């Protein structure tokens, strides 16, 4: 049997200690990373390429789902949490298993067995779209996690000025900086709160709190002027959507 390379991610020292102790008694498992938060986890996945993440959900700054969204294609995951309310979401992102704290060594072994089946079967990893689909319906994203290599940026949605489509990527514009993420603009539109974010153009989603004024510059076409002075094109249907929200 090949050895499974595991990364442990939990913000509690004791919880990691328990996982280390349990894993120590399992055969063919090697702990290659021990991460105290989501940022360390993303870095570990990038640098060390583990086969499996044992991932806590409620962690500071970057939660377990956000970690998975950032590294989803590269690793299998077993969630380890005290909360049962995320179980459905966990399986929607194709988690191998979902362990409820406190759990027994036998239960962990069972989860590892499933992971091994998944690894040897070479089943396809969850696609990004599935991760996005796992959002609780009706809820909106509160922050955007963006990965640049091993670096992770977390941007509260209220700090986003606008989102621009660029080929296979979208660019989030926030506080004078741009952050690229591999995603479609339609996906972004779906997870942002429509009361604040409006698709004003095929290539643009605008945070309406940033809107300073609308200018008519040709028949049927407008330009949105933002507070910082930048100009974005507004299509005819975008203008109608904008009016509906601003009303």
């Amino acid at each position, binding site marked *: 049997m090949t050895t499974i390379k595991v990364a442990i991610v939990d913000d509690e020292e*004791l919880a990691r200690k*328990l996982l280390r102790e349990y894993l120590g008694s399992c055969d063919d498992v090697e702990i290659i990373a021990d991460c105290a938060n989501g940022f360390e986890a993303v870095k570990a996945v990038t640098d060390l390429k583990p086969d499996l993440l044992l991932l806590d959900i409620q962690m*500071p*700054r970057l939660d377990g789902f956000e970690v998975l969204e950032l590294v989803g294609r590269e690793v299998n995951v077993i969630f380890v949490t005290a909360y049962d309310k995320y179980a459905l979401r966990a399986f929607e992102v194709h988690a191998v298993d979902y362990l409820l704290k406190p759990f027994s060594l036998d239960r962990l072994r069972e989860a590892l067995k499933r992971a091994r089946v998944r690894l040897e079967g070479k089943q396809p990893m969850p696609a990004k779209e599935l991760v996005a689909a796992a959002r609780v319906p009706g809820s909106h994203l*509160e922050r955007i996690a963006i990965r640049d290599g091993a670096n992770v940026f977390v941007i*509260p949605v209220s700090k986003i000025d606008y989102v621009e489509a660029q080929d296979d990527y979208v660019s989030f514009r926030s506080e004078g900086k741009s952050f690229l993420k591999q995603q479609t603009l339609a996906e972004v539109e779906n997870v942002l709160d429509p009361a604040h974010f409006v698709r004003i153009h095929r290539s643009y989603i605008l945070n309406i709190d940033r809107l300073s004024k609308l200018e008519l510059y040709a028949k049927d076409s407008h330009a949105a002027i933002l507070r910082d002075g930048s100009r974005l094109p507004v299509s005819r249907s975008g203008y109608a959507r904008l009016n509906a929200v601003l009303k």
Partner: protein
Amino acid sequence: MHPILASRSRTLLYTAAWLPVGAMLTQVLVRGGSIGWNEAAAIVFPMCFVYAFICQASWYICTALPLRERQPVQLIASHGLASGLSALVWVGLGWVWTWLLGFVFATEGLESRYQEQMLVLFVSGVLLFLLAVAFNYLLITFEVSQRAESKALELQVLAREAELKALRAQIDPHFLFNSLNSISALVMADPAAARRMCELLADFLRGSLKLGSEARIPLSEEIRLAECYLDIERVRLGSRLQIDREIDPRCEKCLVPPLIMQPLVENAITHGVARAIEGGVVSLHAERNGAGVKIIIENPFEPETVPRNGTGVGLKNVKMRLASHYSGNARMDVNKNDGRFRVELQLPCEHS
């Protein structure tokens, strides 16, 4: 009890309301042609005074015949009969009184001139009585609706108290699961610490149950429970949680509603320290000021983090409980700045 006659001021007001009625009836008698102003007034005003009270007898009939429960025919018959009888008695009494007045004014045949007006007086008497009936029904309806309203209010208060009681006794199950997981981790590595954690957890659970069932407890007990909770969380969070405690011994005897600090201390951990990568210091501070006691709970928070669901529920409950317990004599101030979240309670210091 009769709503008007039960209070002296209402009786006076009611009697005064009859003065214009007296004036009107006086004019009716004078217009009749054969009675002078003085005599008419002397006849009518005492009659009105007496009739004012006769009419109030209708209140008892009205309570015995509630509008909604009786047939209209029955209502009309009863009140018609009562008003007719009352007016008859009244006009009769009026005749006797006029006959007596005949001696005072030394005028011949005053009572016979009165007799000519008896029909008019009788009709007026019936109408006045019916007016009193209508007025009484109005009073009864008003009273019933007022009673229903105060009952509804009372029920609302009771329901809220029950709700608050249930809330304050609630222990977050995830706190338990996480604590049990910590114990599970400690069992092999540090059995003594695992045992200590079990004891802390037992103390905390016992304390919550006991304090939750009492109406008021000394502040010292509330603080002890909070410390027990923080000790447990310190095992879980390790060096990420530091505690800074500054309690003025003079406020330990003050009585407070149980578990009034607990939700705030729990917030300080779940929304503060546990969500900060580096952790931080939770400070508990209590001091006497004037006749009151000031309690401050402070924790670090990351301004970048967005509020998680459930934020604000604990704060709202504490605020509601302060309002229901101290009715406006207590205050809760919340402010955030410089990465610190600070809740300040200002309560009167009560003693048993």
